[in-house]
């Protein structure tokens, strides 16, 4: 296995109201290609801050972060934007689709910033939406889609640039139980196809769909182990 992501003594401090907060306080871990990792922890445990740093949305205060063999601390804002565009796909709790914009145009957004031409953007967006079972909903705007459909559009958007890692922050937080299971099923299928998945969640049963569970508390990793009784979507 190759290390896709490796952190060494990663630290992130904030100053809030004149008080120094150690949001992430010395995290060293390694995630290999093809893993399916669930990151758990109470709110304020530092799991989201850690997630934002490995997603190159936020920069560490100290420590190193190697992503696909690149030391991200050496990159400027344009290079980080390119990493986010090419290597990482994001899925958010609130879906974060552009309002008044069709599903197809939403999915094509990352390709704009990748400099892909319009005809090819369209073609690739259609392929991703069809793979998500949304071939009949491509012209709909988010307001005309259910929560589950919106999240599937968001997953199609995350995958459209063929990233190495999919980062999902509470992807089922705004969905009902059945739809949540559907989404986890999609994630497992994608993982079977070889994509690396990192899912942040506070729901223990959602974490059971992953293969590895990392638990955060007070900015540190307190547990990192394989999921003992892994669930498969579609199984009771």
């Amino acid at each position: 296995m190759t290390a896709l992501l490796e952190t060494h003594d990663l630290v992130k401090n904030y100053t809030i109201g004149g008080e120094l907060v150690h949001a992430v306080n010395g995290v060293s871990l390694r995630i290999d290609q093809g893993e399916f990792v669930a990151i758990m922890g109470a709110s304020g445990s530092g799991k989201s801050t850690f997630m934002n740093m490995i997603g190159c949305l936020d920069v560490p205060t100290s420590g190193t972060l190697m992503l696909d063999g690149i030391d991200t601390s050496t990159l400027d804002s344009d290079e980080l934007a390119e990493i986010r565009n090419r290597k990482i796909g994001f899925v958010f709790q609130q879906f974060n689709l552009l309002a008044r914009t069709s599903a197809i145009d939403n999915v094509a957004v990352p390709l704009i910033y990748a400099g892909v031409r319009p005809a090819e953007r369209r073609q690739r967006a259609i392929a991703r939406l069809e793979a998500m079972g949304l071939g009949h909903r491509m012209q709909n705007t988010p307001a005309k889609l259910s929560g589950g459909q919106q999240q599937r559009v968001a997953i199609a958007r995350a995958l459209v640039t063929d990233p190495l890692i999919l980062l999902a922050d509470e992807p089922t937080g705004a969905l009902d139980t059945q739809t949540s299971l559907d989404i986890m099923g999609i994630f497992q299928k994608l993982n079977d196809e070889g994509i690396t998945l990192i899912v942040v969640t506070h729901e223990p049963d959602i974490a059971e769909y992953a293969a590895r569970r990392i638990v955060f508390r007070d900015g540190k990793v307190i547990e990192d182990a394989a999921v003992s009784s892994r669930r498969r979507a579609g199984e009771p």
Partner: protein
Amino acid sequence: MSDLLGALSGWSVNVAIAFTALRTNLMRSILTTLGVMIGVFSVILAVAVGNGAQVSVTQQIATLGSNMAIVVPEPERGNGPPRPGDRGRLTERDGEAIARQVPGVIAVAPQLRTSVQMVIGGRSANTQAVGSTEAFGSISNLDTSDGRFITRSDVGAATRVAVIGQTVADKLFVDVNPIGQTVRINRVPFTVIGLLESKGSNLGNDNDDQIIVPITTLRQRLSTATGQGPDDVTLLFVGFEDEETLVAGDREIKALLRDRYRVSKGKITPFTVRTTKEIAETSGQVTQIFQAVLVAIASISLLVGGIGIMNIMLVSVTERTREIGLRMALGAKRSDIRNQFLVEAAVLCIIGGAIGLLLAMVAAAIFQQVADFPAPIGWDTALFAIAFSAVIGLAFGGYPAIRASRLSPIEALRSE
């Protein structure tokens, strides 16, 4: 090549994003555009009116004749108000001397003016009678559209003939060819021998409201002036070969007249020589200042429009902070975000500019009809208007756009 296509498609995407955003807040977009529209409208109209003034002045100068000097028996301005004793005399013999002695002079035409009343049948007209010689036509670019001009023999024999302007003809004759008709001018019968080519009017001054008669006839039959010598004239028109002799002629004429009237050294010259070149230059400067002032005043409204753009773009950036964060997460570089908002501001301004330009064209056309004053808007002005609106957009949209591009992706994503 593919980079270029990629860049172009990036811009077209930004234009599409801009239109979506502007449509979303349609009322706000329209009101913001209104500011730019009014600004561009007033600047373009100011430019048009200024251009019109310039065209009008150029036309007026062309009607004077191309290389011509006018000699007036008054001391030059700039020495305080004229005193009664300042006014000198000028005679036909002075004109003859100028024609003989000043280099480059083609011809000299004296001029004597008086107000007259013309009557034919039951109709009458009050106008200016200009007494001159056959040379007047060629020097001052006057030609007849019908009939003939006064001749040397008309002047020699003091015949009672008149060449009349179009306005005068319109007042006196309906459905009758004026040529050959007998008109009473201050009760003296005259024969109309020609119709002056119409020169239109400049700035309210009708060039067609005059008649031309031989100077000898005017002096004997029409002049009401008293206390004048037998060959005194109001002014002299001097026609020159070219611009070079005209420029030198100014000094030559003054020197000659000082000599003829024995003006001692140190005393001011009691004559003013104005050349068409000077008149053109002075008028050009005046109209340029006039135009600059107009444009400066109009620019203030454009500035206000630009500030409106900046204000609304700042609001737009604040409202769409989350969208900016999302776009950054999906791979937008700072320059992509900056360009997106720049294009939005430019689109607002170009739409406003285009509408403002159209309204200015309509207003200029109406102005031209109503005020009989040219206000041309050329392609260059139109292109300038559009380009200038885009520049306003970029200038006033620049700060909000840069502010948007400097947002931290994670803080932008977290904002509500």
